[in-house]
């Protein structure tokens, strides 16, 4: 392990003379190692048990009770996530713009909205499911649309808060520079602060995608569990996570559930990589 230079500039005393610091160091190292091992164990377990149970028929375009294909669920996941984001992202980002750029800083309204968002973000998803079932299913039945609308409400506070944080992190000197040139607020926001906050906003959206992909309870209540390819936004549909739950629940398809878990793991890893690439590109970027 590498030694950190001591803050005082003096050479660090021998560790033996500071038993407490040695102990602390052992403890934090142990914690890091244990965490890494747990993550590796879970991932390894899923890979080993899932990968070997993959077979081509699991990816057949059409679901039958013989092949239990997950293709409709993969497509359902994509459609569900995209639709939920299309509803939640613009609303969340524009609310954040309002809070960070237009409302008076520290006003009661801003504080109330922040508190509300934080509270909403902490509510168990099954409660959203019940709410969605009562509201959206009345309108559209078990459907992609009802599920996406419910998900959108769940994701809204998350997107709004992360976008607001990202906007507030943009230094005021950029705003002063823009206003100082005689630009209006709209232009300062759209040409300067929003682009500057884009990496943070995107990070929030990727988090939201992660939650959407992993969601089950709220969707079972609202979009149902149809294993078929959706015909329209009014069709019932299942996402991969719901698919996995359904397979396990039916008791007959343990192997297929493992295979699905593996695919979910791959998707999650890909999302993480994507977020890394996106934020890396923004950080290094700026060239026109």
């Amino acid at each position: 392990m590498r030694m950190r230079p001591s803050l005082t500039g003096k050479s660090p005393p021998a560790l033996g003379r500071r038993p407490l610091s040695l102990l602390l160091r052992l403890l934090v190292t142990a914690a890091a190692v244990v965490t890494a091992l747990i993550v590796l164990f879970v991932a390894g377990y899923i890979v080993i048990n899932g990968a070997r149970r993959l077979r081509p028929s699991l990816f057949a375009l059409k679901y039958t009770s013989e092949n239990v294909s997950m293709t409709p669920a993969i497509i359902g996941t994509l459609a569900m996530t995209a639709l939920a984001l299309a509803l939640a992202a613009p609303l969340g980002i524009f609310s954040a713009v309002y809070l960070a750029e237009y409302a008076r800083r520290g006003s009661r309204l801003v504080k109330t909205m922040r508190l509300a968002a934080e509270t909403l973000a902490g509510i168990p998803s099954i409660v959203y499911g019940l709410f969605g079932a009562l509201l959206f299913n009345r309108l559209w039945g078990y459907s992609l649309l009802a599920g996406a609308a419910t998900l959108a409400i769940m994701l809204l506070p998350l997107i709004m808060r992360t976008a607001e944080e990202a906007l507030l992190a943009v230094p005021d000197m950029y705003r002063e520079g823009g206003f100082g040139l005689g630009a209006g607020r709209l232009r300062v926001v759209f040409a300067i602060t929003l682009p500057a906050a884009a990496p943070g906003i995107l990070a929030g959206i990727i988090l939201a995608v992660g939650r959407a992909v992993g969601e089950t309870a709220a969707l079972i209540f609202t979009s149902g569990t149809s294993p078929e390819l959706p015909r329209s936004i009014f069709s019932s549909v299942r996402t991969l996570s719901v698919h996995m739950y359904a397979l396990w629940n039916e008791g007959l398809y343990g192997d297929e559930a493992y295979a699905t878990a593996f695919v979910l793991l791959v998707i999650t890893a890909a999302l993480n990589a994507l977020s890394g690439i996106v934020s890396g590109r923004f950080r290094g970027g700026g060239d026109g």
Partner: protein
Amino acid sequence: MGKIDIENLNLYYGEFHALRGVSLSAPERGITALIGPSGCGKSSLLKTVNRLNDLSEGCRVEGRVLLDGEDVYGGGMDIYTLRRRVGMVFQKPNPFPMSIYDNVAFGPRSHGVRARSVLDGIVEESLRRAVIWDEVKDRLAGSALRLSGGQQQRLCIARALAVRPETLLMDEPTSALDPISTAKIEELASELKKAYTIIIVTHNMQQAARVSDRTAFFLLGEVVELGDTSRIFTAPRDKRTEDYITGRFG
């Protein structure tokens, strides 16, 4: 009458009385230096001239600030036009996180210039005036944040010039720069005063003496002494001015 005339200005941040009865006149095509210890209200004064103070919470202004004889706080002055006419350069170079070209084009675009050929012309002219064209002409599409601090500050000056202002407010423009960049900015200011009215805030006595025609010494929100720079630095009338410029104070 100067280009900018400030008459009996009082400025408050909430309860705090930041500027007290300030009267000051900045002559056209001249450089007026504002000196004084930190917190005496120099930046606040600059920000009243282009009304950037409107953005500050609880800020209130009494008195008059005249640009060509017209009160900038009067109803007749459009704030966007005012800020176009009165450019500002900040203490910390603050190029926007975008390309060099887009930085300079930001102002003109905000005021409705769209044609690429026109923008190209403005960008080149502004960068030339700020004496940075030769250093950046081959990388106009590159990020402004990759420039050195001194280059960033000259880019900010070019950005301010791009909206064809009549006056420039410079708030300690060299305090974050090395001596060579500082010399370049000072030279640039001396050149620009042929066309613009400049008010510069500085902590550096030599700088004020070198570049300015008039100097105002501030203390605790008040103008203690105002006069020709050569006179202020050779024969200050107020004991406090003398103490400050000889470094016995603040």
